[in-house]
């Protein structure tokens, strides 16, 4: 510190740091920059690359960015598996979410009252959402096992099935039903917990006022409670839709898209085309069909957020 030059430089840099640290805007952008860079580099950049791949020749082994125009898309449209997958994407997601909304409402209402052991019940209810999807799906695979299925045992016990008969839960007829069932199982907990939070946020006065006015349970539920929790119901549904539209894990574990490509959705078809078969371009093109769906969901979500005046 005896060197006057170093001392001035140190004072200078301290002053510089002071200025920076006291200017909230500049400090703010400095604190934010790493996150913005990371998110840009690891979300926006790959998204752009995905668009690029979908119109070029690139494969796992060959980096050939020569322009192919809309060839991939033409090939996809001629592939019957794509149309099945597109249809399944909607069946799995919308089918599951309709059931989840209804069941979630019923369960959330039942959970509103306090009872002993609620903590444990909530833990059990949350389990499907919290456990890794691949492991939960593996549990279902064992439940659906063609030889040892516990569901078939139960069906035989109540004489839905004869002693030697069995359901092929993951076969061509029931495969889609089973996958939808697992989607319901997986997304119901989140919807329920969100709805419980929504119901809990309604002030008691409102219930009391409706009760005073002589409204019965159904009127109170459909004309008072439900309108008040609509925004939150929307949020729960939109997240459920995102999860089930884009999920490939359940299909990967349970059926790998089989038998005969009947159970693929867009996400799993993109995986098997892009990674297992190595055609990055066509895989990317398939996965991009999810993008319009997600844009619509994002817009809806913003509208909900804005209407409930939180932004």
């Amino acid at each position, binding site marked *: 510190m005896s060197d006057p030059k170093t001392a001035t430089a140190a004072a200078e840099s301290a002053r510089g740091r002071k200025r920076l*640290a006291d*200017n*909230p*805007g500049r400090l*703010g*952008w400095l*604190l*934010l920059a*790493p*996150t*913005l860079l990371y998110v840009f580099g*690891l*979300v926006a950049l*790959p*998204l752009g*690359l995905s668009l690029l*791949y979908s119109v070029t020749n*690139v494969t*796992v082994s060959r*980096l050939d960015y020569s322009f192919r125009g809309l060839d991939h898309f033409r090939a996809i449209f001629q592939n019957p598996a794509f149309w099945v997958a597109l249809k399944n994407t909607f069946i799995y997601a919308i089918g599951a979410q309709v059931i989840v909304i209804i*069941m979630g409402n*019923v*369960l959330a209402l*039942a*959970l509103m*009252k306090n*009872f002993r052991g609620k903590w444990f019940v909530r833990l*059990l209810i*949350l*389990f499907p959402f919290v*456990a*890794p*999807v691949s*492991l*939960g799906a*593996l*549990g279902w695979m*064992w439940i659906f096992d063609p030889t*040892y299925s*516990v569901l078939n045992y139960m069906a035989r016990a109540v004489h839905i099935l004869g002693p030697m008969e069995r359901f092929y839960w993951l076969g061509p007829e029931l495969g889609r039903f089973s996958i939808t069932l697992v989607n319901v*199982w997986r997304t119901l907990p989140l919807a329920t*917990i*969100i709805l419980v939070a*929504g119901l809990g946020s309604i002030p008691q006065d409102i219930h009391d006022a409706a009760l005073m006015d002589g409204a019965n349970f159904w009127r109170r539920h459909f004309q008072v409670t439900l309108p008040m929790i609509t*925004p*939150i119901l929307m*949020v729960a549904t939109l997240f459920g839709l995102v999860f089930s539209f*884009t999920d490939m*894990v359940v299909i990967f574990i349970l059926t790998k898209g089989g038998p005969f490509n009947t159970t693929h959705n*867009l996400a799993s078809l993109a*995986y098997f085309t*892009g*990674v297992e078969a190595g055609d990055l371009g066509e895989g990317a093109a398939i*996965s991009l069909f*999810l*993008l319009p769906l997600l844009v619509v969901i994002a817009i809806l979500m913003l509208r*909900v*957020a804005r209407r*409930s005046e939180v*932004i």
Partner: protein
Amino acid sequence: MERRAMHLKYRLRGWAASGGQFGIVAAFTAFLAFPFYWMVITTFKQTGDLMDKNANPLIFHDWPTLEQLRYLFQGTEFGLWLWNTAWVGGLVVTITVLLAVPAGYSLARLIGPTGGSLGIGIFLTYLVPPTILFIPFSRIIADLGLQNSLWSLVLVYPSFTVPFCTWLMMGFFKSIPADLEEAAMLDGYDRLQAFLRVVVPISMSGILTSVIFAFALVIQEFLYAVTFVSTATRMTVSVGVPTYAIRGDVYYWGSLMAGCIIASVPIAIVYNIFVDRFVAGFTVGAIK
């Protein structure tokens, strides 16, 4: 007499209501929790008991056994998968906290009204699913020479943990009164010092929430892990169990289910404690 009848009527109605409530909760819990009951009972059954097609599979017929657990730890790489998951999780959580905590503070306090919309923009990237990004990533990872390495996961996982945790932290910092920092700055701290020495210490519960959710997201992730890593010893638990605990045509269901239970129970319990804050983050503040 009449009053007593009225009283009885209300009482009966009350019982019917709580009976109905009990029935609904019981039925739904049975549906949601059944796979886990099934995993637990499978874990402790002897193989002969599992393969007996005529016996009621919902209960034990032979003595419970620890054989399946023993096979899981000695016959598969399960211990290594747990360790790999913890290793990736630890690094990803560190990166996430270092990025998301300052970013959340900046969005909540420092950059003014832009912060709100930018925060929503960052949150929305959480909606861009791995399903769209994994194909370009597989190429990028290969170009970086990271294929079949856990470092690929360390690099990629923050792309979904950071947006979510930034959003959580932004909400958390907004709930802290601004007077605290202003008082600290009157005492001679600058902004940065006020943030590091006053705001961060009182935000430990918010940071802990971010840590837990980032870690949970890492444990659950499957698509990137199955795309980038192919060697059994380098897998994380969510990929290792479904891929390598299955040998040929013989399904080691007992040890498979044991792996599922061991990997899910701890995180479920911790999650349950923090779930309310998680919901608050998820609902974009649609609850006031």
